[in-house]
């Protein structure tokens, strides 16, 4: 065995005991605004999401302040959520509006209501451990393509990740090499920019001949390359604009990769896709493309999950010069875990990091060649 003083130790700082400040997407409005209560386990709590007759989406603490009934098992009545235990009615503002069997509602009959926002078909909730409302300048960019007929409707997936803190998924934004090893892509250009509450990733990639269909066809064309601009807007909501380059056309897609923490050691991962219906692409073809892209991304996330479930949390990663800015990303990410007054300039100041892909690309080309040779023999 190697003597102890030669071994690099993995260091683990105490994990955050709070959940990130920011807008978190809970899912699609078309799913959540169906007049039924929805239970969402998030931020270490149980929440209820419901929309009443007024169509307004509301998020409340799920536990009724009367005797602790679970409002997410209740029923929407009018614009209120009715508790299944004794039928107390709670409004979207968190106030008890009515107790059918009582002469009047007692004082301080108020539960926690969470600021919500519906934008581009998605429902967002604002989490702030300090309890402040969302500042006007902390926003999620609009995606006008969602409303555009030339784009498909959302295809949306949701999966619960147990046994991992959501920082693992955020780390991906700087992790160029894992895109080759985990996601079968071939990054040829990779740059990160962090500024304010956003973290960008500019990535171009070549198609991988070793993962392409051996005989590309019209229904299964070969991807020659991809151009992608992805960005986290806040701690948990990423928009990724990916253009897939095929032999005779380019296909534009917009992907969402977002999550909300269930607790310190699990999170719900959601991702969505819309695809542009270019001239010459029928609605059916575009939908098929969206479905296929979704399946590919789903497969990619499954690969990530297998890694996350088994890996160690590590606060002192040992990096080579061809790795991305993991430490600086975590410095940026830290801003969402401290009080607003403690956000420092170093967390939000603009930072840029461009990887030299020369050496990685040499190694990967050789590996692709090897895989192709193995496939031929």
């Amino acid at each position, binding site marked *: 065995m190697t003597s102890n003083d030669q071994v690099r130790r993995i260091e683990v700082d105490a994990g955050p005991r709070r959940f990130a400040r920011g807008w978190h997407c809970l899912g699609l409005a078309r799913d959540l605004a169906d007049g039924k209560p929805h239970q969402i386990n998030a931020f270490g709590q149980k929440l209820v999401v419901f929309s009443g007759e007024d169509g307004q989406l509301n998020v409340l603490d799920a536990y009724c302040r009367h005797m602790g009934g679970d409002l997410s098992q209740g029923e929407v009545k009018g614009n209120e959520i009715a508790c299944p235990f004794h039928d107390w009615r709670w409004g979207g503002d968190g106030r008890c509006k009515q107790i059918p069997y009582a002469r009047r509602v007692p004082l301080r009959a108020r539960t926690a209501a969470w600021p919500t926002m519906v934008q581009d078909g998605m429902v967002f909730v604002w989490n702030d451990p300090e309890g402040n409302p969302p500042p006007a300048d902390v926003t999620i960019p609009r995606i006008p393509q969602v409303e555009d007929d030339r784009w498909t409707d959302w295809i949306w997936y949701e999966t619960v990740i147990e046994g991992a803190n959501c920082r693992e998924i955020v780390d991906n934004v700087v992790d160029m090499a894992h895109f080759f090893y985990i996601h079968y892509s071939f990054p040829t250009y990779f740059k990160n920019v962090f500024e304010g509450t956003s973290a960008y990733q500019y990535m171009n990639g070549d198609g991988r001949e070793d993962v392409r269909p051996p005989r590309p066809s019209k229904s299964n064309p070969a991807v020659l390359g991809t151009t992608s601009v*992805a960005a986290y807007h806040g701690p948990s909501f990423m928009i990724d*604009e990916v253009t897939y380059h095929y032999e005779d056309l380019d296909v534009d897609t917009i992907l969402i990769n977002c999550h909300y923490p269930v607790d310190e050691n699990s999170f719900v991962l959601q991702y969505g896709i819309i695809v542009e219906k270019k001239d010459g692409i029928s609605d059916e073809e575009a939908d098929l493309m969206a479905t296929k892209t979704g399946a590919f991304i789903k497969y990619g996330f499954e690969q990530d999950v297998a890694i996350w479930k088994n890996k160690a949390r590590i606060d002192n990663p040992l*990096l080579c010069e061809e790795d991305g800015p993991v430490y600086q990303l975590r410095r940026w990410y830290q801003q969402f875990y401290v009080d607003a007054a403690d956000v420092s300039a170093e967390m939000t100041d603009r930072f840029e*990091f461009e990887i030299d892909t020369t050496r990685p690309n040499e190694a990967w080309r050789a590996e692709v060649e090897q895989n192709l040779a193995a496939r031929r023999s």
Partner: protein
Amino acid sequence: MNAVRPDVRLEAAPMQPVACTTCEAEVLARKSSWDQSTLQWDATALERCIERRTTPARSERPNRNAFAGCAALRASIREAAVRGELDVQSDDPLRTNPEAIHD
């Protein structure tokens, strides 16, 4: 929570100051090779940057309205490296036209 740790790669080779030859914005930079660069801005530098202030046409795309980077600063950093004022960690020689291989 704990203070954020510094990048382990900076232990052997820290960031160095570089000024933009166009706007004189001072940033911290580091190059591990001719084609890698790390760039730390602060508020003063960002205010100085001329390209940053010239706003391009608004894009319909959600991620395309961000400032991708300053070309003048990028050139200044390369020049500083060529002049030997900014260290380049790898000992690979400077290729005569390093931009070309990415096309």
